[in-house]
């Protein structure tokens, strides 16, 4: 069994195996929309390899981080941009 790490996604604890990307962790919670586009459409990951920028969200207070390229680590705080705030 892989070692797990605990992070916070949209205010809730999530325990995931080490080596899980932030994008995978969010999708596994049943959250498919990661951000709002400039016309407020809900968007989620497309390319899965750091190119398309559709999975951008906030990680540890830094906006515009690519969820597909970031690995989950203990204590990480992730916020999706689904709400049009």
């Amino acid at each position, binding site marked *: 069994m892989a070692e797990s790490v605990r992070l916070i996604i949209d205010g809730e604890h999530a325990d995931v195996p080490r080596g899980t990307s932030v994008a995978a962790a969010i999708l596994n919670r049943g959250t*498919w929309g990661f951000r709002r586009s400039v016309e407020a459409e809900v968007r989620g990951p497309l390319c899965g*390899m750091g*190119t398309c920028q559709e999975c951008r969200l906030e990680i540890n207070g830094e906006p515009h981080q690519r969820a597909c390229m970031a690995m989950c680590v203990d204590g990480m705080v992730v916020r999706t941009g689904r709400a049009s705030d």
Partner: protein
Amino acid sequence: MEHRHAKVVVIGAGPAGLAAAARAGEHGCSVLVIDDNPDSGGQIWRGDHGLRARTWRARCAAAGVAFVHETAVIGESAPGTLVAGRPRGPMRVRFERLVLATGARELFLPFPGWTLPGVFGAGGLQALVKSGFDVRGMVIPVVGSGPLLPVIAAYLRGRGARVPIVAEQASAASMRGLATGLLGAPAKLIQAIRLRAALWRTPYRTGYWPVQATGEDRVREVKVSNGQRTLTIACDALACGFGLVPNIHVASTLGCHITEGRVDVSDLMRTSREGVFAAGEALGVGGVECALVEGEIAGLAAAGAEDEAADLRGRRARARAFAGALSDAFRLREELRRVVDDATVVCRCEDVRWGRVRARSCWRDAKLQTRCGMGPCQGRVCGPAMAFLRGWRVGDSRPPVYPAGAKDLAVALGSAGASAAPDERGLRERTNMEPER
């Protein structure tokens, strides 16, 4: 800011990059590999502990090759000095020889509904599953084009998804042409048969392409058509890719000649720029065999072992010929240009719809008038799509080649130190990168 220096610097840690790094390292060069991903292997060997991946990783380790991961090259601050962005701040890397092994990305073509959450690239979905996305029990059609579709379908099935259809836009006739061509390459033929066997429960339909994805909050249904008949398939997610596009942004920023979206090289993988080599998919999509042999040639040539490099030219020619046959077989059909409607978003970063962009005269005009291609992905998605839809040339690129934080750029510029001041086409032109709205 961290400074690094190596005789041979390699950008990209996929098969071409690893082969180049190992070969140069084995000839006594100090080698540093810069890679955007958390691990080596590129897209094709992501999470792969197969024999070939292991072998090349081990050769790199034995040759003392150093790696920096999660690091994206932003530009060149002075000739021979790269600036790269990382999560923990920027770094500068000086090189004597440079090997560009920047690989390829997926080609996405717009169709109504393709922006819905749950519509993934085919390779994109595979990458997400490899990084932990659990697709057990999901119904996932695989649509688009290319030899990777059945590979990805088999992979998804192996991870517990149900793949109701693989829809390949190429016609049966062009596929048959491929089968004939394959007879010249027995190893590939066996590979193809194995895949077919793995797919036996999945209908592989040629001549069908996606025309619409629908769903409220995420994709729930996809329609594929052969021009006469339309099939409607319920789904939980959709895997959709139309082949691969060479990543040439770094090469183009460094001033290497590009022809038709590919980096120009000599038969020893020299680009038009002295001391800069390129290998693998950046030269045109060729597959892993091709990437490996070109990586070897580039690494050897960069290390000055030109005779040894020249001996590999025959192997390279055969790999390229095979790639050429593949690309003919999977040529994209006309009809794919007519799937978009005026309301279809073409540029996902800036939400530019087909109705606004289709009447523009060229890529530059589209950028200026509509902001198409001006968002954070810098046209990496919509550029190749518009090249296909309108026949535009979209190759131009300028630094920063990757979305870079203002912080990284400022630091990179501010502490030029001993190295020369940033040159004109260096990092000065910041930046349409970070969406500030």
